[in-house]
């Protein structure tokens, strides 16, 4: 067993864990944060995406011991004080989810994208989310959801400038 201390969604957790325990299982089974889902065995689907020191990573492909001393944000850590973050609101507004299973990973990856690039194009969104698989939406509305969030965040950041928000429900641009 190994002793680890991990900061998860702002709270420190110290636990004795088997070295082989995957971070995803630690979050789900030990901390009961079940919003992080597991969709494959081979690091392909991204359902388990969390932020590790700010970077989106697949928590099924990290051992919990590797997270010792690191800061993890899961989907449960996106909303603050019960208030949905723009990315969560965007997924709802633009119907960016159906079964909801890929959604936490998708939103976490999108959160990291907007952190790095507050105004991403459709191409940039599609590229950034290409490590996360969705089987329901065909990605169209996920792209719209991220655009919705980007615009909402820009408006929040510059409230003095009431930007006229383009309706994000426009047909996806054809290439």
């Amino acid at each position, binding site marked *: 067993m190994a002793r680890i201390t991990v900061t998860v969604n702002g709270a420190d957790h110290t636990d004795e864990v088997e070295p082989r325990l995957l971070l995803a299982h630690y979050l789900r089974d030990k901390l009961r944060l079940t919003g992080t889902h597991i969709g494959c*065995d*081979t*690091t392909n689907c991204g359902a388990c995406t969390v932020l590790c020191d700010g970077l*989106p990573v697949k928590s099924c*492909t990290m051992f919990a011991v590797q997270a010792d001393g690191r800061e993890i944000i899961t989907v449960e850590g996106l909303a603050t004080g019960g208030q949905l973050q723009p990315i969560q609101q965007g997924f709802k507004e633009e119907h960016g989810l159906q079964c909801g299973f890929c959604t936490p990973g998708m939103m976490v990856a999108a959160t990291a994208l907007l952190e790095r690039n507050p105004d991403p194009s459709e191409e940039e969104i599609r590229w*950034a989310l*290409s*490590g*996360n698989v969705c089987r329901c939406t065909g990605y169209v509305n996920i792209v719209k959801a991220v655009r919705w969030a980007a615009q909402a965040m820009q408006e929040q950041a510059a409230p003095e400038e009431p930007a006229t928000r383009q309706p994000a429900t426009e047909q996806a641009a054809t290439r």
Partner: protein
Amino acid sequence: MFPAAFDYRSPAALEDVLDSLAAYGDEAKVLAGGMSLIPMMKLRFASPEVLVDLGRVPGLDAVQETPDGLRIGALVRHAELEASELLRQRYPVMAAAAPLIADPLVRNRGTLVGSLAHADPAGDWGSVMLALNAEVVARSTAGQRVIPVREFFTGPFSTVLQPTEVAVEVRVPRPSSRSGGTYLKLERKVGDFATVGVAAHLELDNERIGRAGLALTAVGGHNVVAAEAEEVLAGAEPGPEVFAEAAEAAARAADPPSDVRGSADYKRQVVRTYVRRGLARSLELAQAA
């Protein structure tokens, strides 16, 4: 899904890593990004008794440029290379390859050095490093050795590294100022291994080709240098004719398996096409440099 049990070592000094490897030999595996090793452990294709994690070893996470070239530590992630302005300016073959490695999330964890040490014949970095004539720095309790990448790979998932050794750095020689390169990869989707990959690197010497580096992914037991093609190019006047000749020579160097991705003939055809296109693009970049 659920890896077998193992002992975990996470030393804070490289010396302790080396001691562990000396003690456990091939019962141990080195963990850096873990993007290949952990999935294999989950599928129980790999069940090492000891895992030695480099994660806490200081000094391995830097990309440094010296007058001789680049030094890339064993903990430098693909994503860092993808974002590097330096690579875009002076090492375009690396800049072209980085975004094509796996997927964006894997690139946040996986490392270049780890990818070389894993020696998947369908790995992308191997070809890039071959084209650039890079070297791997290996350490063990016995000391350090510097291994040319062209002597590094010995077969599928196998290298000249000893079980007691760990690759700590890759050194990439600095290309001449008038050079260009690119990496072309045929993949079936994002995150797929290459069906075929071609790393091309050209250095211009006056209006002729100086050194040319050309290496191929997923067409043999390991990443291979298209040596005959490099010879065709060296000293030649760059242009479609010599590129076509090099493409034919490169296709001869390819010995790909026929599988669900395509027949051997098909893969050789992609090699041919990508070598031509890769060299043309490399030339453009070199001439613009």
